[in-house]
């Protein structure tokens, strides 16, 4: 029995054959033949020792591994001999696979990888489902009433609830003071997720209801760093928001909730205040044995009793998987990106198939020679496949490297715009997909050329010196590929064009204020010591007073939120004038200090701005934005109108005293607003708010101090910190930003999308250009003789070049036409993320088409320049 020892076997065979020849030589000499002649004859008669040795090895059953290695060796040699082709193919593959790997790792982390909890498939979130004349949509956040209905009636679910996002709060333990991220969660939250605390426990029902004890569960990282891994931490007291909290639990390392939180406090859900709006997200686990259908049925029953119709839309409660509920906002943009990057891979594969096809045709002669020498058809196909697989492997390896770099870049970009649930990393799964893609690409694009090449007519190929076959071969597969590439490229470019125009539109919107020389910083007032309007007003007045006195400061103000941030929205009713409401209307809402409009240079259009006289004892005043007037007070004099702000917990009647210009804000509601838009706004003086209201909004919003500098900004930041510390040394500023930064961050998601899709489209354009270039260059090489004859017969170089380059331009035209039709359909998918431009925008289509045609023309004429270098006489002589 033989084992696989090729080198051993090869030695054996060689020794056998050499022995044979020696003995035969010796016999010939003994027969009277000259030794030299004898040696020559012995070798000649034996024939090719290499071929015989090969046959012996095959006969010995070593066909596959041996031949495979040989194919790979030969393939390496062949590829090394044509560096241009190899570089083009490997680079194409590497870029495609790299891009796919990077995007897939994000898709994987956000959408595909199951949530890091036991049995994540049984975690659900109830969502309001709207259907009616408009399109149907899901809404995940719920009101306190809905939560109570589910908590009390959903017998099939083990449910918990958590608040909106994680807030930055001031934390003090021992002598360390820092700003940490706090998330508010209900009793049972950790149990529902299925991750028990490492130490201690979660929140009890009493701790989670109004008046309960102030307790906290801390993250492993916070326990380790701020609490020095104290094993006796349970029961200890920490200061949070200026009040003592008892630590009742420590979560295990790596535990993640829906927000990146450092500690958790009880949510204490209610049906008033916060609970009046949709501010709670419910997470639930199906109880053992309960099916999805059962649970959904119960949800519908609960929904029917607790939800009421709004407008023309019907509403009900349904279940979403917890994961899709969390990633609802990200799903569409990510899937679009994924599709785009898949298209790029497709274009890349088409491109490489084209390259290989052209190469196989150029190698007609080599392949025919090998077949004439007895190489089997299967062996040829195997050889060509080995080359493709080799290319695939090289491309895959380079692609994995690029993918890793891409992941690093995406992580940086995504920090601002993606709330990524799990770490984005190049894991085994992602790499597996990349490797699979590269192998599949290698085999797919290797197969077709291999089959074409193996259909060669040996005699024709050899007899005509390799010209006739190459010249006569069918050019259409390659042409279709090129046209297809251009069409797919068009599709991607239109998508990217629309997103870039959306971004340009949003970026170009008039901000409505002067962002230059403005510094902002946030202070969390979610603090037990600032539960009253009087305390808050005192803090604002005192700190602003000190800041205004600083050299280089022009003016200073505080606002609940900034332009380009998402603002609080409140319900209101118009009380007098032309429009009087019984139902609630919705508007954005800010409390501000009097100098706010001056600091940001927001123009006053009518009436007056607030002054120090608008204090808690004065008549309640409000200022509204131009958009507010257009939307709600059209044809009416806004000044002197009264609004009921009770819908926001501000049970009062305010009088409109002024109208100011619009500012851009991140929209959090309304279908008609883009991601950034001038929304209707109501401003009220901070001094005229209510204790209860401030306590609630400060759990969601962190007010900003805004300072306009008149001179160089150096020292202003330190001055602001000193001014605040002089009033309250325990309040830290969290992060200083210029207004330009705030604006930049507001458009991070759109920038991310536009940049990524733009990069992918550029890649597609490049690949299409390479495809066209390769096709034309190839046809110039194939048609040398014909072109030589034409030139000899008196055609000008320009005519010959046109003849060669024309197919490239014509195919690009066809591709652009086909791509436009595709894009017209596909761009409708983008309608929810495109703003300021219609999905079928003719300008974008025209610009993209022209750009593609220009690139295609360049890619066609560049290789056609070689015609000029043809020497007619020489070309003909070679034949």
């Amino acid at each position, binding site marked *: 029995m033989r084992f696989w020892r090729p080198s051993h076997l090869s030695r054996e065979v060689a020794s*056998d*054959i050499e022995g044979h020849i020696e003995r*035969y030589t010796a016999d010939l000499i003994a027969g009277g033949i000259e030794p030299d002649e004898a040696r020559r004859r012995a070798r000649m008669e034996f024939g090719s020792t290499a071929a015989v040795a090969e046959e012996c090895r095959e006969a010995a059953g070593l066909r596959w591994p041996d031949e495979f290695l040989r194919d790979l060796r030969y393939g390496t040699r062949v590829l090394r001999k044509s560096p241009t082709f190899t570089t083009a193919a490997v680079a194409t593959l590497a870029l495609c696979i790299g891009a796919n790997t990077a995007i897939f790792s994000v898709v994987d982390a956000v959408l595909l990888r199951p949530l890091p909890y036991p049995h994540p498939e049984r975690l659900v979130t109830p969502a309001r489902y709207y259907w009616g004349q408009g399109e149907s949509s899901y809404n995940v956040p719920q009101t306190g009433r809905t939560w109570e209905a589910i908590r009390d009636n959903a017998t099939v679910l083990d449910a918990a609830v958590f608040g909106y996002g994680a807030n930055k709060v001031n934390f003090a333990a021992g002598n360390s003071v820092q700003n940490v991220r706090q998330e508010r969660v209900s009793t049972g939250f950790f149990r529902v997720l299925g991750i028990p605390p490492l130490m201690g426990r979660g929140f009890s029902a009493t701790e989670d209801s109004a008046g309960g004890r102030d307790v906290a569960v801390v993250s492993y990282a916070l326990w380790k760093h701020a609490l020095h891994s104290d094993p006796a931490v349970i029961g200890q007291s920490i200061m949070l928001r200026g009040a003592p909290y008892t630590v009742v639990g420590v979560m295990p390392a790596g535990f993640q909730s829906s927000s990146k939180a450092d500690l958790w406090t009880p949510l204490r859900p209610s049906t008033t205040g916060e609970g009046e709006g949709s501010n709670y997200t419910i997470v639930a686990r199906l109880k053992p044995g309960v099916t999805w259908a059962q649970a959904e049925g119960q949800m519908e029953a609960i929904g029917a009793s607790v939800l009421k119709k709004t407008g023309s839309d019907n509403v009900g409660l349904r279940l979403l998987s917890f994961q899709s509920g969390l990633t609802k906002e990200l799903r569409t943009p990510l899937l679009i990106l994924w599709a785009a990057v898949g298209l790029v891979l497709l274009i890349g594969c088409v491109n490489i198939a084209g390259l290989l096809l052209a190469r196989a045709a150029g190698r007609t002669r080599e392949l025919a020679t090998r077949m004439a020498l007895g190489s089997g058809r299967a062996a040829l196909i195997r050889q060509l496949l080995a080359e493709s697989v080799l290319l695939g492997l090289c491309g895959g390896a380079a692609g994995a490297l690029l993918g890793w770099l891409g992941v690093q870049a995406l992580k940086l970009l995504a920090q601002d715009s993606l709330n990524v649930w799990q770490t984005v990393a190049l894991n085994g799964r992602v790499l597996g997909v990349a490797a699979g893609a590269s192998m599949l690409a290698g085999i797919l694009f290797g197969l077709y050329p291999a089959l074409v090449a193996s259909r060669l007519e040996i005699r024709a190929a050899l007899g005509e010196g390799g010209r006739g076959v190459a010249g006569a071969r069918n050019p259409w597969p390659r042409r279709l590929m090129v046209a297809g590439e251009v069409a797919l490229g068009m599709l991607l470019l239109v998508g990217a064009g629309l997103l870039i125009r959306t971004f340009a539109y949003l970026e170009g919107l008039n901000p409505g204020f002067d962002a230059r020389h403005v510094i902002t910083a946030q202070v969390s007032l979610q603090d037990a010591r600032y539960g009253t309007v009087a305390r808050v007003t005192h803090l604002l007045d005192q700190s602003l007073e000190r800041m205004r006195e600083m050299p280089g400061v022009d003016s200073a103000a505080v606002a609940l939120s900034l332009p380009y941030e998402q603002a609080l929205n409140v319900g209101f009713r118009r009380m007098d004038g032309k429009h009087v409401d019984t139902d609630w209307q919705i508007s954005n809402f800010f409390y501000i200090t009097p100098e706010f409009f001056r600091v940001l240079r927001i123009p006053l259009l009518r009436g007056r701005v607030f002054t120090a006289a608008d204090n808690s004892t004065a008549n309640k005043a409000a200022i509204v934005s131009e958009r507010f007037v257009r939307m709600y007070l059209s044809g009416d004099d806004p000044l002197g109108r009264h609004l009921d702000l009770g819908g926001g917990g501000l049970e009062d009647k305010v009088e409109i005293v002024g109208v100011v210009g619009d500012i851009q804000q991140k929209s959090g509601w309304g279908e008609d607003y883009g991601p950034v838009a001038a929304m209707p706004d109501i401003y009220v003086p901070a001094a005229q708010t209510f204790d209860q209201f401030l306590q609630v909004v400060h759990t969601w919003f962190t007010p900003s101090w805004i300072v306009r500098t008149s001179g160089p900004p150096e020292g202003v930041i330190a001055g602001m910190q000193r001014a605040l510390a002089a009033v309250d040394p325990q309040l830290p500023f969290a992060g200083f930003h210029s207004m330009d930064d705030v604006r930049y961050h507001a458009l991070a998601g759109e920038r991310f999308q536009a940049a990524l899709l733009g990069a992918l489209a550029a890649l597609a354009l490049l690949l299409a250009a390479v495809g066209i270039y390769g096709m034309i260059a190839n046809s110039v090489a194939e048609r040398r003789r014909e072109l030589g004859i034409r030139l000899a017969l008196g055609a000008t170089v320009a005519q010959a070049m046109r003849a060669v380059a024309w197919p490239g331009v014509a195919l690009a035209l066809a591709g652009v036409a086909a791509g436009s039709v595709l894009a017209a359909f596909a761009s409708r998918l983008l309608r929810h993320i495109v703003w300021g431009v219609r999905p079928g925008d003719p300008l974008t289509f025209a610009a993209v088409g022209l750009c593609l045609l220009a690139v295609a023309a360049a890619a066609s004429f560049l290789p056609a320049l070689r015609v000029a270098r043809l020497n007619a006489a020489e070309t003909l002589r070679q034949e």
Partner: protein
Amino acid sequence: MAKRIMPPNNSEPARPEAHLLQGTLDMLILKAVSLGPLHGYGVLLRIQQISKDALQIPQGSLYPALYRLEHRGWIAAEWGESENKRKAKYYRLTAAGRRQLESERRDWDRLVGAIADVLEA
């Protein structure tokens, strides 16, 4: 042109060759080594000798056949020293090879008999 061994002492013109029938080479090799271990060249010489030079075996096809037979377990090889002090592989028939030879021989006899019957009819 078929490559062939010219017997060393044979200066006469070669007699007309009998072409090997497809598949008979294996049988001839098995028969040759059944008479005693031989190296590859020896197999060739022995077949020529027994057939009185009527059968010319292409040198190139001998070795793949040997390796194929060895792989099937019909002959076994061992290293020995040849007459010119050179190490060589000596092939000998295995038990399985002997059975194979007998079966091939029966098939052959049947075939020859059948053909002869046809021709004599």
